[in-house]
């Protein structure tokens, strides 16, 4: 196979996966069948595109192949008249979006709103959307939610069962029902960006395409809902992170710590845009978790260097964030900020409390943070043990190399 055809299939996957699955759900009402047939269509593309060339409209090609596959499967499995009728109806492609009065002009954003049904628990809704529309793997989603792959797989199955058994429709919601779904949509975009920014598996640390797409969608969302400051907050947050993407990893693809990053290479246009958007959000006077996270990112992005960073302000903002959305990860970040503001011993107290709670068991950044603080206190043996613990938990090659490097520094003369 020509390698560029493989790239084109990968690109088609990124662009078209969600649309193909959504079209199949719209036609069959069966989420599992939709996903399986979409997978079959992409497998078919990998086989025939190198031979026949990439079709002019890859999305339409993939949808047709997936639909035919669904038709085959339904016919083969059709033992009841109802199923046969269902199969017959499939041959007439219907467009579920024709009578849509959502006011959402962006195709993909409309699909995300459709998928984020409030009758599913928030986490299930977000996970299902990431799986179904963004095509993230169950393992990637599990890592984003910090649960095991098995737990996440069970959650996805349970959500799909409820969709089927309680007859949750796959329908674009009318405009007045959109606010019910905003929290889910924001979480989807946030995790999509994160997955692109710090890819959870494999060698590629920054999956640029996912980040760009998440930013595009967050912008579309903030235009759709100009009165929702959290949409602006999320967009600002993405800009602050994205502005640093060129310095986040070095030439060999290894992680570079914030304090070691070359700030002259941070994108000033994106930082400026982030600041302006965050200001607009904060003027609404309705703070929320994304605005607070953007404010934290703004503190970093606008500091001249690491020493100039207002750590006391960041520690206070993490306190605010912990109040809005209590989470052990937020608490870990607060510990880092407190360590910077008040010294490593103060941070270590908070890390010890997290260790004792067991809430972050299996999360490599907990022992990695502990190691950093111990090192700054001169407790080198304990620091080395913690780095080794983190190394055993890290998910990407880059994270492992970073931790190996820290360990090597510790072992050297010091």
């Amino acid at each position, binding site marked *: 196979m020509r390698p560029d055809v493989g790239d084109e299939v990968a690109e088609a996957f990124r662009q078209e996966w969600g649309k193909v699955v959504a079209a199949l759900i719209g036609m069959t009402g069966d989420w599992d069948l939709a996903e399986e047939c979409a997978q079959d269509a992409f497998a078919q593309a990998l086989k025939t595109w190198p031979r026949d060339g990439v079709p002019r409209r890859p999305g339409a090609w993939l949808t047709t192949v997936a639909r035919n596959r669904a038709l085959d499967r339904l016919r083969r499995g059709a033992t009841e008249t109802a199923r046969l009728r269902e199969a017959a109806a499939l041959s007439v492609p219907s467009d579920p979006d024709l009578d849509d009065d959502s006011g959402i002009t962006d195709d993909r954003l409309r699909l995300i709103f459709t998928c984020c049904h409030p*009758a599913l628990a928030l986490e299930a809704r977000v996970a299902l959307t990431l799986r179904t529309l963004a095509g993230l793997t169950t393992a990637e989603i599990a890592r984003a939610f910090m649960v095991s792959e098995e737990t996440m797989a069970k959650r996805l199955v349970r959500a799909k069962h409820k969709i089927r*058994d*309680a*007859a*949750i*429709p796959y*329908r674009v919601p009318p405009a007045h029902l959109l606010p019910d779904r905003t929290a889910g949509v924001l979480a989807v975009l946030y995790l999509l960006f994160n997955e692109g920014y710090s890819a959870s598996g494999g060698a590629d640390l920054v999956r640029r395409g996912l980040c760009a797409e998440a930013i595009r969608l967050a912008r579309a969302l903030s235009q759709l809902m100009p009165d929702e400051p959290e949409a602006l907050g999320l967009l600002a947050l993405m800009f602050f992170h994205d502005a640093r993407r060129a310095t986040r990893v070095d030439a060999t693809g290894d992680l570079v710590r914030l304090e070691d990053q070359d700030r002259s290479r941070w994108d000033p246009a994106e930082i400026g845009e982030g600041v302006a958007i965050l200001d607009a959000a904060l003027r609404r006077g309705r703070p929320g978790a994304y605005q607070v996270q953007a404010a934290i990112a703004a503190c970093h992005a606008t500091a001249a260097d690491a020493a100039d960073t207002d750590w006391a302000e960041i520690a206070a903002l993490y306190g605010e964030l912990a109040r809005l959305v209590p989470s052990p990860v937020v608490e870990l970040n607060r510990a880092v900020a407190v360590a910077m503001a008040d010294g490593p011993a103060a941070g270590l107290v908070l890390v010890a409390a997290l260790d004792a709670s067991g809430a972050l068991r299996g999360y490599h950044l907990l022992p990695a943070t502990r190691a950093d603080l111990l090192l700054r206190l001169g407790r080198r043996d304990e620091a080395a043990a913690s780095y080794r613990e983190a190394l055993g938990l890290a998910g990407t090659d880059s994270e492992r190399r970073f931790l190996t490097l820290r360990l090597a520094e510790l072992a050297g003369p010091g």
Partner: protein
Amino acid sequence: MKYMMLVCVAEGTELSPDEAARIGPDTEAWVEEMDRRGIRLQGNQLRPVSDATTVCVRGDEVLIADGPFAETKEQIAGYDILECADLDEAIEVAAKHPVARFGKLEVRPFWVE
């Protein structure tokens, strides 16, 4: 699609005079609309839990207890069996029920083989 809609109210809920005056006519209007739309197949209000009896059999013994089986604050005050196109319609119907303003409605699909 058939759903059971359980109408739940917390024990000791006191209605405001305004709410107390509206609840009767509003419920009648809801029943009238849902009957007309062919959605409400059946339904009724239940006597309070002080009139409930709980029955179970352990071994050969029939055990009888005064009161409800669930020791929760929310009690089932009534039910309606709904025939809806999908969950969105059931949610719309439940949200229109006047008890939704101070109580809670649980909508659950019937078991279908």
